[in-house]
């Protein structure tokens, strides 16, 4: 009798609620959107960017998209262009459909706009330019010794228990001069590498110093047979 009464109560409850609130009824949000119609930034970012750039909290192998300094020096249009066409030399893939990727231009726009919404701080007054021609190699060696040698070693080959080599030919073969410049400016604060303003306390690196040190780093490039490359070949 008890079971009968209980079943009757359950059935009446369902009947009264009119099947609208049962867990099995599919909701609008359960609908699987066509991949090109996904417009939720979190979903787009976590599926396409977080693997390499981290999600703002986690860290990735390449620069975090939640780095205020990086966002302040990189013009938004340029980021849109990078996401659209990729940066083959650094291994950044092209994400637009036109370039063989999986995102529409609208989706790329959503990603870029929302990444820039993370940029809370205005650019620092002394921020170096995002890009500039290579500087002087000889001066660059001195800049490196003053700003970077304490972690990467006087010769740039790394120090045990501190930081690894920045002149390893394989490393230099996989990154562009612009990549080296961006890292010199923004550092990797999430991994303990300071930015241009805090390597030497009270003495921020200047635009020229950054160009010089990048030139010095780039001068270590070698081809796969260990032969030095002239700047034009790099």
């Amino acid at each position: 009798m008890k079971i009968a009464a209980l079943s009757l109560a359950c059935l009446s409850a369902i009947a009264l609620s009119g099947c609208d609130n049962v867990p099995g009824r599919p909701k609008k949000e359960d609908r699987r959107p066509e991949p090109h119609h996904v417009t939720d930034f979190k979903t787009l970012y976590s599926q396409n960017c977080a693997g390499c750039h981290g999600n703002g909290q986690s860290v990735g192998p390449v620069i975090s998209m939640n780095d205020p300094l990086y966002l302040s020096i990189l013009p938004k249009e340029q980021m849109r262009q990078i996401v659209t066409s990729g940066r083959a030399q650094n291994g950044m893939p092209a994400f637009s459909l036109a370039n063989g990727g999986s995102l529409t231009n609208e989706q790329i726009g959503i990603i870029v706009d929302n990444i820039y919404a993370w940029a809370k701080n205005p650019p620092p007054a002394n921020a170096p330019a995002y890009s500039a021609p290579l500087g002087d190699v000889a001066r660059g060696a001195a800049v490196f010794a003053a700003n970077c040698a304490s972690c990467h070693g006087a010769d740039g080959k790394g120090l045990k228990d501190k930081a690894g080599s920045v002149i390893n030919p394989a490393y230099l073969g996989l990154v562009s001069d612009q990549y080296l410049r961006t890292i010199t400016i923004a550092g990797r604060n999430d991994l303990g590498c300071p930015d241009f303003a805090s390597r030497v306390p009270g003495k921020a690196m200047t635009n020229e110093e950054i160009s010089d040190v990048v030139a010095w780093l780039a001068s270590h490039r070698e081809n796969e047979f260990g032969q030095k490359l002239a700047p034009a070949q790099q």
Partner: protein
Amino acid sequence: MNGKALIQALNGVYEWVDKRLHVTDLFNHTAGHPIPKSSASWFYVFGSATLLCFMIQLLTGCLLALVYVPSAAEAYTTLEYLTFRQELGWFLRATHYWGSNFMVGIMLIHVTQVFLFGAYKYPREITWMSGVVLMLLTLGLAFTGQVMRFDEDAYWGLGIGAAIAGRSPMIGQQVVNFMLGGPIIASETLSRFFTLHVFVLPGSVLALVALHLRMVLTKGINEYPKPGQIVRKETYDKEYATIIKKEGIPFFPHGIWKDLVAASIVIGGILFCVLMFGPKGPLGEPNPTQIDTVPRPDFFFLWIFAIAALMPDYMETFMLLVAPPIIIGLLFILPFINNTGEKSWRRRPIAVLSVILIYLALGLLTYLGQTSPWSPDMKAWSGAETPREFVEGRSPLELQGLAVLQNKQCRNCHAIDGIGGHRGPDLADVGTRLTKDQLVRQIIQGGGNMPAYGKNLSPYETDALVAYMVSLHPRGEQPARDSAVPATPAPMSVQEGEQHAAVGAH
């Protein structure tokens, strides 16, 4: 008109109808037929419960067909309409989906019970054989039904089905054309499967159910087997007649009430699943350019999915084309292999062991099919994050190596600390398992189910990748070392490691 006169009038009408249609006779020969008292058992309700599920499928199927359009262009839209817009459309879809799950599940219990109770033996061979065909038809309905839910699962499921059919020797291409209505999956394919699903297969099921029930009536329902009661061709018919004579009871009402209780439990079970879990899908659109999907069949075919994924390649043709006819053939001729003798499962250890083994294997394969660790995670390369301890403390080259690992889509098959695909081994401690040289060889040449990446990686990319992977060993645990080289007391410094990696890969 008083009550008595009314009853008399009704009786008159009944007699008039009965004289022409012989309803009483029909009732006495069907619902009223005598069954052994021992057969009015809870073990004997699964056949009627399967039939009930089929009836539910017919009813809900007819209602679904009012809206569903079997064309490749419109099927998905009508499914979405049914699921999200049509009043109670979701309920209808869910009832049809769960009805099919229950039908397959209860049918399997029915087959198992019949096998364990020796009901296939003399003189019920045709009952069993028609049952085997019914089982195949039910599985056919389940497969074609899965195609009706024309989403990415259906699309790729069809693709796999066509690929299997295409392996047929000599006539592979013709079989595929026949199955798909052309060389590719298109509207013709859906029309074919619709025809199968709503006309050919259900019609065949109805015909065979008639035969199956006819055999149950003519040869009688199997008596509840007792250990030691041996079936002999010479004596069985007389013995069965004696049982019916001595302790026979009419199916209605003595046996049927258990079937009715079971029927209400089945309906309750289906309704519960419908209300709690709802319909399945539709998942993503059936779009062949969309490869970012993990297609998986419905639960009753997960074991086949697992076998297809796990078997070694030299077994493929045998397992796909030779084994199924052998298994079906064996099932079909089972009554002739084992026609007489003991019926009770208590005296048939091999039968019991076979059932346990088959269910263990099916269960394990179904579990593997559900988790499908062999399917790559197609979004891992760009979406799978790397836990902090596997990024921090790495040199620039090693970080670049991690970027290569992501870009070259290694993560789709290899997880790091559980995050990523599970097709290949987890890389979290790969540095303790493989030396630098072994890693280079494995990446360049592949092997052990891994493709060779030599042509897809520049020497620098290989250097970076290997440098990163060498760094993947838990803190305090030594990296793998070449057994031919004497152990060095101190681990290599970062710089030495990198130089070593750079030279080795060139």
